[in-house]
């Protein structure tokens, strides 16, 4: 059974009196342990699809299932609880808390969302910081880090709760080419090390090459467009 499945999903936004379709008739499945990318130009519906998978938004039509849970049915609080337990997020703007150190930022989901005791938080934080190569920066504040380092911390924060799925919306958009490559490689390595499924969006061809599964979106629809050697999703 797929970890993520979208069945004939559509999403329409209403702007004043005009209805704007963002996704229509999208069906896809992502297996556990995948390193998948949603690709396409700006406005193709990548972020909308990630928001639906991430339980941040509800589909107008169709069904979204994540880890066996129909997330379309979850209310606000249930959605928050589900995300806290099952999902990890990596944002384009990093969104680290500037008043917390690297270690405290990574600890945040365990402390403020899962309410775990210190005895369980400490080893988990140390493990992911070690994994992303940021152990020596644990006491620094985000303002003292480079963009690449911030994103590594963000990846560590997403992984610390051992979620089933990590969603990353344009995680390399604010990074230079070399750093972006290193971050994607890191995410892939984390997938290998932790067995976590990664789904990310990008429109950068160099980053797409790193994905094992590609879903091409255009004008809110899933289209063919396989690259050599890649598993291709079909509409």
């Amino acid at each position, binding site marked *: 059974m797929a970890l993520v499945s979208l069945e004939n999903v559509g999403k329409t936004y209403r702007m004043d009196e005009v209805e704007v379709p963002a996704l229509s008739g999208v069906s896809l499945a992502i297996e556990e342990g995948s390193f998948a990318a949603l690709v396409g130009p700006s406005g193709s519906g990548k972020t909308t699809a990630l928001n639906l998978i991430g339980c941040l938004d509800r589909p107008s039509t169709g069904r979204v299932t994540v880890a066996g849970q129909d997330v379309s049915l979850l209310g606000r609080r249930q959605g*928050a609880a589900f995300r*806290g337990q099952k999902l*990890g997020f990596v944002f384009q703007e990093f*969104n680290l808390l500037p008043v917390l150190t690297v270690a405290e930022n990574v600890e945040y*989901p365990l402390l403020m969302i899962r309410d775990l005791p210190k005895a369980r938080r400490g080893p988990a934080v140390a493990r992911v910081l070690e994994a992303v190569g940021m152990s020596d920066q644990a006491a620094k504040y985000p303002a003292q880090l480079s963009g690449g380092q911030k994103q590594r911390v963000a990846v560590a924060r997403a992984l610390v709760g051992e979620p089933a799925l990590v969603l990353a919306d344009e995680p390399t958009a604010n990074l230079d080419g070399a750093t972006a490559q290193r971050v994607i490689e890191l995410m892939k390595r984390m997938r290998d090390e932790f067995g976590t499924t990664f789904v990310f969006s990008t429109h950068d061809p160099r980053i797409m090459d790193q994905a094992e599964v590609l879903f091409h979106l255009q004008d809110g629809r899933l289209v063919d467009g396989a690259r050599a050697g890649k598993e291709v999703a079909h509409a």
Partner: protein
Amino acid sequence: MLKVIRLALKNLTRYKRRTLLTGLLIAFGVVAVILFVGLSGSFTRVVVGQITDSVLSHLQVHRKGYVASIDNLPLDRMIPPQAFQRLEAVLAQTPGVAAVSPRIKFAAMLSNYVQTTGARLNGIDPAKEQAVAPLLASRVKNAAHPDTLLRPGEVLLPELLAKGMNVKTGDTVVLVATNKEGSVNGMTFKVAGVVESLMGPGGRDGYLHIKDAATLLRMTTPEISEVAVRAQSFEGVEKLAKALRAALLPIKNKTGQPLFELHTWDQLTPFHNVVRMINIMILGIKIILIAVVLISVLNVMMMSVYERVREIGALAAMGTSPGRIRGLFVAEGFCLGLVSSLAGAAIGLGALMVMNLTGVEVHFGMANQIFALTPTIAPLEVVSACLIVLAVSVLASLQPAAKAARLEPVEALRHV
């Protein structure tokens, strides 16, 4: 809870200058409340102490209807001897009464053989009067007998009158008075001292011995104008007044009406209105404090939410519950109020301490008196000021916190 408070404290350090300015504003409000309550409380205590301990005493009993005409010092509304005996018996049996002093109050003409003027006088038993008004002796300047206020045949003249007539201790003066039957009598007296003026009723009266007053007014059986009563404690005045009113109520005149009326010090002096005004001003200062805290905390928290919309979106996306997000912002307001009010309380109490060490003196009214203040504040007042700040801080944080908790993660993450 502790982790939320810890994160809230860290969040307050994001914009240090803004937090510091807001905190200072709140602290300044708390300092203002503490200083005003401390100084006004001390001023009230000193002035009330002067009025009660040197003139009025705590309570006064008169024949019914006397106080309504007290400005005229009526001699036809005196307490007759038999009624006075019953009153003395009641006062002796009532717990809480520390001392009693009967007074004969009357108006007279004062002459130094060159000039003549009107004077208000109190016939008193010096020992009893000192028991009900222990500070009276301290107002007597150039006293002939520092141990006793005066002796029979002597008079204490009010300061302004003595100065105006150029009379000094040891001089001889003549008092001429008319009794209630219209009979005029005159007697010579030796001046035993000059009484400093004091605000309020009786503050510019002269004194003579009660026996001399009865003789001057040709009273065959002395009648009493008023009986001053001192309670065992100032705090017990109201309780004593209630007990005495109940005890005196059954004593009726020939028409079946109550024979006596009893007034507490605050009913007899206009300074009580000043005290009430001071209390209203304290309330006003507290309302200003509430407004300052409400507006400043609300402003800071609203700005804080507005500036952190994306961050709130990220926290919500990661799975932080709306309740916890709300709690984080309420905790920020609470911490801001707590730290500011504690700082304000410390500064305010420190300032009061400095004032007590250096001394504060104030002039008040026309009496040309200097009051040395010892400003203090009850711990409960400090706690209540801090609690007001805390409660208002939390209240002011609720709306911004609710707004933060209501933010949709998707929209918040899109916020620029």
